[in-house]
Each structure stands twice: as C-alpha cells, then as structure tokens.
C-alpha cells in the first residue's frame, strides 16, 4: 500500500549522478555569456602558458632583455643566446636574445640609453635596434618591433611581447600556487576551528583577526623584506629559493581570509541535521569533519579561490611598483605580468615626464610598453572574475533566475 507511483514506474536509466550534476552545472553556466567569455580567455591564457616555451617569438633581433649588473640572465630556463657587450663606461651589458644575437645587434652601451637621455637630445632611435627605428615625437602607429621593445631609462630594455609570452606561465604558477596553498591552509584551520569550537576556535579566530587587520600589501612587504635581508642567497639569483620565498610570503598573508570564510560556513553546516544523524549512527569526529563538514563547506572557498587567482598578479605588480622587484624576483625584469607592467609604469613615468620637460624631445609616450602588459593583466583578472561569477550563478541554485 505504501508502494508509491515511482515504485510502480521504475525511472529510466540515467548517467552516473556526478556526471549528471556536471551536466546540470554546464547547462546553467552556458546561459551566462560573460561567464563563457571569461572561461574562453582563461583557457586561452592557460594554453599560452603551457606552450609558451615553444612559442616562436618573431622579433629575434630584439633582445628579450638586456642587463648590466644583474644576475646571469640565463638562470631562467629557456632563455638561450646571451650576448655580452663590453662598454667603456659601465662594464659589460648582457643582452639575452631569443635565439642568437643578430648581426646588427644594437649598441647598448650604458649611459646612452638609461641615464642622460633626457639631458642630451639623442633620440630614442639610437637605443632601439636600427632595424626598427622610430621617431620619438610621432606617437602614431609603429612597426611591430617598436611595439616589441621597452624604452626603460632605469631598467634595461626588454622585448615586451616575449616577456608577456614568457610571463603567462609564471603568472599562472604564482597565482594558482599561492591562492591554492592559502586556501588549503585556511580550509583546514577554519574547518577545525568551526567544528571543534570552544577555546581552540576563540584562539584561532583571534589570530585570524590579527592577521586580517594588517593590510595585505604591507604585510607582504614586511615579510618579504625580512626574508630578503635574512637570506643573502635570496638576494642573489637563485630562482627556486626566490620563488619559494615569494610564495611563502604570500601564503602567510593569504590563509586567514579563507579561514574566516570556511569557519562561517562550517558553523552553519555544523547545525544541520545530517551531522547529528551521522553522530547518531556513531560516526567519529574525524569522519564527520572529513566526510560531511568539509565537502559541504567548500563551495564559498571555491568561489573565493577563483576570485583571488586574478588578484595575485595585480598584487605582485603593486609590490614591484613599490620597488620590490629585486626582493621578489631573481632578475629584473622578470617575466611575470604584474612585474612587467609595474616596471613599464615606473619607467614610463620617469621617461615620459622627463622627456616632456626636455624641449629637445617633447612628450614621448611609448604607449605599447604600458598598453600590452596592462591589457594582459586586465584581461587575466577580469576573465577570472567573470568566470567565477558565472560559476557562482551556475552552482548556487538560489541565483538561478
């Protein structure tokens, strides 16, 4: 008599439920055009990052970067073709090319291109390989090569396009690893605090409050500064150590956000009846935490994660802008989008304004140098943001309207 209608009509065979869930999510996600756009851009960037090492950079005659007294530039994997030029004034300049130094490699000897330029009325043309000479005054459309080079007066000149291509993988690496580790730590701390409660909860949450009341950038600055003065090797060019230092510095700052989010979520999940049901059937605390609480609290973490991934390059950029390049990276310029754009901004201010105040030159805006890194940064952040927005709508049934 209790046999109900659904028992009478057996349901049709369906795909595996988890697959079915994914289908549902995709079904709802598809409707969010902006989300789709974001997804597309993110996928494209990932693609570039994965095959950037193999990307053919067309402008072989333009160095990826030149350096005077930085650490050996080829410490980064995949940057062959160093070309050293002995300058009378300030010693050797090492220029790194994509393949091999071209026959008509430009003369990069120091003062000419980074110090007195604004004083003397030498045009920028002299610091850019003759093949792609541009007139400084005309800020109109330029040959590709022009787009490709930076015109730093304080930093060495580098190949913007190449840097960006190279930068994609580093940016992704930093973003994902930093936010991922931070989220992991935060998830554990928050879940434990929220679940066990009591004194433990109090202590951990006070700690989180403390961490959260220090502005992120300042915190990173302090941490990285301390690390940098403590590990002389970091001041040197060892890539791995530096990258590790960078990631650690950020993770130390990053986890509290997640801890707070997760804890709030856990507090609501903990009150749900199915937790009590599990306890009633004798589940241990550990089991409840791992099987019930955490799986039901990850959703906001996931959303926050997808949001934060976009902000990391921005933050790194800000730090470099404040002059922390040397602490953060093994070499300046370093192929990371934030770093590149920040560097170009700092250059630009100086050069641009100085040139503006040098009647001989007039205002020269090497806009390519600002535009492309800026665009890379902007699109990365915004696409990630759109993606996460779309995901939230698709995964949260309340928002399906």
């Amino acid at each position: 008599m209790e046999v109900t209608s659904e028992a009478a009509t057996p349901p049709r065979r369906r795909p595996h439920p988890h697959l079915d869930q994914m289908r549902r999510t995709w079904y709802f996600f598809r409707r969010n055009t902006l989300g789709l756009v974001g997804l597309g851009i993110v996928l494209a960037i990932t693609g570039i990052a994965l095959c950037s090492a193999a990307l053919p950079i067309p402008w072989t005659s333009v160095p990826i970067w030149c350096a005077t007294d930085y650490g050996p530039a080829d410490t980064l994997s995949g940057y062959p073709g160093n070309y050293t030029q002995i300058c009378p004034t300030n010693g050797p300049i090492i220029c790194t090319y994509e393949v091999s130094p071209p026959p008509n490699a430009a003369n990069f000897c120091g003062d000419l291109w980074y110090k007195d330029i604004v004083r003397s009325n030498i045009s920028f043309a002299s610091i850019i390989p003759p093949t792609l000479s541009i007139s400084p005054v005309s800020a109109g459309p330029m040959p590709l090569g022009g787009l490709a080079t930076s015109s730093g007066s304080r930093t060495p000149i580098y190949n913007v396009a190449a840097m960006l291509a190279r930068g994609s993988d580093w940016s992704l690496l930093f973003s994902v690893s930093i936010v991922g580790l931070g989220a992991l730590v935060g998830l554990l701390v928050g879940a434990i605090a929220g679940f066990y409660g009591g004194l433990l909860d109090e202590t951990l949450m006070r700690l989180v409050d403390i961490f959260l009341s220090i502005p992120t950038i300042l915190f990173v600055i302090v941490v990285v500064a301390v690390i940098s003065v403590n590990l002389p090797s970091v001041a040197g060019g060892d890539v791995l150590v530096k990258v590790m230092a960078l990631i650690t510095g950020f993770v130390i700052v990053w986890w509290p956000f997640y801890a707070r989010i997760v804890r709030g979520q856990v507090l609501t999940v903990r009150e749900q009846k199915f937790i009590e049901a599990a306890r009633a059937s004798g589940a241990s605390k550990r089991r409840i935490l791992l099987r019930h609480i955490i799986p039901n609290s990850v959703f906001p973490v996931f959303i926050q994660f997808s949001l934060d991934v976009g902000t990391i390059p921005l933050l790194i950029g800000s730090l470099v802008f404040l002059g922390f390049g040397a602490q953060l990276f093994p070499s300046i310029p370093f192929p990371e989008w934030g770093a590149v754009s920040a560097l170009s901004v700092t250059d630009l201010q100086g050069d641009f304004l100085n040139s503006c105040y040098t009647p001989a030159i007039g205002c020269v805006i090497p806009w390519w140098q600002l535009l492309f890194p800026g665009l890379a940064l902007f699109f990365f952040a915004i696409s990630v943001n759109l993606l996460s927005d779309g995901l939230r709508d698709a995964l949260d049934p309340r928002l399906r309207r």
Partner: protein
Amino acid sequence: MQMWTYVVRRALLIAPVLIGVVTITFVLFAALPIQYQLLAHFGSPTVKQHCGYQPQCSCATLNPTSVNGNSCTCISPPTVTIPTGICANPVFQEYKNRLGLNQPIEEQWLTYVYHSFTFQWGTVSNYSTVAAVYPQLKGIPVATAIAWELPYTVELALLSLLIILVIAIPLGNASAVYRNRPIDQFSRIMSFSGYALPAFLLGSLVVMGVVLVMLPHTGFLVKTPWCHQGEPIDEELTYSFPPTTACYPGLGFGNSYPAWVANGVQSRPTGFFTIDAALHGNSWLALDSFLRILLPALVIAYGTVAGLLRFVRNSMLEVMNLDYVRTARSGGVPEATVVGRHAGRNSLNVTITVLGLTFAGFLGGFPIIEDVFHLNGIGELLAISANPNPGLDFAVIFGSTILFTFLIVTANLIVDVLYAFLDPRVRLG
C-alpha cells in the same frame, strides 16, 4: 544586552588584536639581522663606524622621482658585513645593552610592545631610501615623521570614504531594483573593471592623462605658483621640512608646505590642508588642495567600490525578496518608500559591515596611490622606506605598519558600533 555593554565589550575585544599585531611585528623584527635592529632604533652613524655598516653603492642623492634622474643603479639591498673584531667591541655591546638585545626574548617582547604602544618606533635611518629622498628626515624619530604625514593620509581617506558611500549605495540599490537593465550592466562593468585595474596602473594613467591635458594649457597642476617653472629645482625648497615633492615638474600633485609659505599662511590648526585653507579664508588654496586629493580619492574609491557594489546589489536583491518587504508592499506602502526605507536600510547595514571588512584592503592601497600621486602621506613614506635601494628602513616600515593596523582596528570598532546602532538585533540580542 545594553548598548553600552556591547560597546565596552567590543572595545575590550580589540586589545588582544592590537597586542597580537604588535607581537607579529616583533617576531618579524626579531628575525632581522642585528645591525638592522640597531639601525631601526637609532639610525646613527656610530652604528656604521662601529659595525661597518656599508651600503655597496652610494645613492646619497638618490631621488627615484627627481628630475635630474641621476638614479641609483644598485638593485641588491645593502649587504652588511660585521667584522667580528668591531662588533665585539664594547661600544657595540653597549648599544645592544641599551636596546636590551642581550636580554631574554620575552623581556625584549615586553619592551617592544611597550615601545609600540608609546609610539617609540625608532629613528629614520641615515642610510635608507627615505633618508636619501628626504634628507631632512635623517635621524628624526619615526613617530614624528609619521605624525607630520598623518593629516595627508587621513584627509585622503575621509574623502575617498565619502565618495565610496556616495557611489556604492545608490548605484548598488539601483542595480538591484532594475536588475539586468542598463544601470545594472553599467555597475557590473564598473565593478569588474575596477577589480581588474590595479591602482598603480590606473593611477599612473590618470596622472599622465592629467599632465597631457594640462601641459598644452600649462595648467595650474604643473605651474604651481610656488615653483620656479622650468628652472632646475632648487634643493632647499624641495628638501625643506616637512618633506615636499611639490616642485616635481609635471606633477603638481601632493600638498606641500611651500604652498603655504608662498601664500604666507603658516599656522595649520587642523593639519588638513583643505580645511585649514578654508579656515584661513584662502579659497584658491582650498580649491587647489581639494583638487589635489580629489583624483587620488577617486582612484581609490573606484577600486574599493568595485568590491562593494556586488555586495550591496546582492544583499539588496535578497532583501527585496524577504517577507517583511512583502509585508510593507501588501500594506500599500508606495514602492519608493519600500525600496528606500525598508530594503534600503538593511542594505545599508550590509554595506557598512562589508566596508569594515574591506577597510584593510582600502588602506593597503594608500602606499601605491600616494606614491603615484606624490602625496606626502604615510603611504608614500612607507613606499619609499620599503624601496630597497639604497636601503630599507625597517623603523619606518614597522612603524607605519603598526599605525595602519591601529587605524584599521579602530575603524572596525567604529563600524561595529555603528552597526549596533543601526540593527537592534545586535544591540539587544
């Protein structure tokens, strides 16, 4: 629970946070090499001569933003070598004693906390970027330097907060009420772009834009009346105390003392330039000072509003579907009142809470903004002191970090009390 009980409890709750923050800074500080600690305490030359503090490169006259661009080329921070012979000598030990660096760690911690809360934040080191940019700051206590710069930052913060509230609440409410209509799309674009445009990028663009616009007309931003235009910078003026970058050609941003000198205004009753100028009845100066902080404030507000808008909108959307809004409607309350009074009040609560949460990020943007716009606030001081060539100045870094944290904690306290005023459930619940 009574209101005052709540307030007192909340106020008591911030004490552990403050101590905790100071403790963290202490841990980091204690992790510094000894000579940095010494320098941070008194950036005196004696430390140099006794401990062989020797920057690799001399960037004495360095000013990363100076016209004659004789810039420092050294990237690596000053490596400090302490010949044991020297550092073993009694004078050095005596310094260590004076700092209590020979005492057990908990003693040191106590002293550190005590110093932090009594604003004894050490001295500006002679060999740091700060000293190089603002030689007149050499060797003065960090607290004093910060105190000089505080008004700039507070002024800017207040203005940008005002802008944030004025933009975020109406726009968020509107985009919730007219969901998926043009205004909603506009706010969406605004929030996304504001989120994706880093302050340094946007700020620099604004600066250049302004300069480009102003230059042809030789606008006042460039030709600040107290600058000898076009002529090479006269050092005394630039390095006059309090610090100023007013005469940085092309960028007239940054309120600066010479303006007051030039206008024969000396006294600064409130310390806020705009207000003081108004008090002095110098309307032109007031306008000028206001315009100087207007753009930076807008840039900051843009970044913060981006985060806020979505919150306001979503909370408003939720509130609009709640039962009590339906109750008001069913009672015949006009739609405008429903939105403005019943729903708006609750979304205001949300806005304030979120603002409190994002306050850290909000203040964190100040070093960048002030650096970009050359406003001599604490942010710029921090930015400069954090610039590793020729030298980091940990006294300033830690000092301003502690100050920022104090500001943030206070702001959160205010927000919570405000929230309790607005929402009886917190007050009485």
